[in-house]
């Protein structure tokens, strides 16, 4: 699976959260990061190139700071100019049909405010309806979004947990079962260890993978026993 992350942020170098997430995926060979404001400093979008990029990826993600309950201007302009009738929707070819689509949104306000009774009143799911409608119209599967609230207030543990969710949204198949997360983690550990010459570290990681695999066998075995004894 190849993932395209379309990032829109007018001042990306000043954004600690954007730098944190984007820096973390530099070695990911199955991920393409495409920052619109850097690619088009004059604002003139190359529609054919953008459509070719979309064609060559299976999962499309929009990553942006939440500005007035939507994306920055450049991403809206990109939608208007790239997702044309005859390419993304309408009669004939629907180039995005069957792909997956998701959102990664950086939000400066506390999560609790995005609900009835909170200062922002509406949930993220309600406020992102236009993106959900876009995915629907173009025939893409809408993924669970990743909303990152108040990155600046997160401690290291929260940042790590969020980073794992970010990597999963970028590279894990759309299924959050324990088994899928195990497979994903083993795969990522193996990739991260490729070329590592530290024998002790390699040994420990190999052992952790072995434990995860043995636990999976135990869980599957117990599942069969349970199915058996539940049978009337």
């Amino acid at each position, binding site marked *: 699976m190849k993932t395209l992350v379309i990032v829109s942020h007018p001042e990306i170098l000043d954004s600690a959260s954007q730098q944190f997430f984007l820096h973390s995926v530099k070695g990911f060979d199955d991920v393409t990061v495409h920052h619109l404001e850097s690619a088009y400093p004059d604002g003139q979008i190359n529609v054919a190139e953008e459509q070719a990029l979309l064609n060559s990826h299976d999962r499309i993600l929009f990553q942006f700071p939440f500005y007035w309950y939507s994306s920055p201007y450049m991403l809206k302009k990109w939608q208007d100019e790239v997702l044309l009738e005859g390419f993304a929707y309408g009669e004939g070819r629907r180039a995005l049909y069957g792909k997956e689509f998701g959102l990664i949104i950086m939000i400066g306000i506390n999560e609790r405010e995005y609900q009835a009774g909170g200062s922002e009143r509406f949930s993220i799911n309600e406020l992102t309806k236009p993106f959900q409608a876009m995915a629907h119209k173009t025939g893409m599967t809408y993924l669970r979004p990743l909303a990152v609230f108040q990155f600046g207030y997160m401690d290291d543990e929260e940042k*790590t947990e969020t980073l794992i969710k970010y990597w999963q949204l970028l590279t894990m198949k759309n299924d959050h079962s324990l088994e899928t997360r*195990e497979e994903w983690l083993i795969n990522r550990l193996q990739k*991260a*260890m490729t070329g590592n010459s530290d024998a002790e570290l390699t040994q420990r990681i190999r052992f952790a993978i072995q434990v*995860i695999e043995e*636990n999976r066998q135990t*869980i599957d075995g117990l599942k069969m026993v349970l199915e058996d004894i539940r049978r009337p």
Partner: protein
Amino acid sequence: MEKEKEEWILSELERTLEKTADETLRVLIKAAQGIIKEQSRRIEQMEAEIDGTLWSPRRWGE
């Protein structure tokens, strides 16, 4: 998984964390600790359910 084995592998991973500077690997090691804990919990719950089901009064007549 036996409790001792779980504790042992978790502490091994913790020691690995202390020695690893590679940020990507550090995050993945923390994820591995989380997954192993979650698997152990799942195994315990399933074993408890098996025990409970086998000792159910509904089965006493069998």
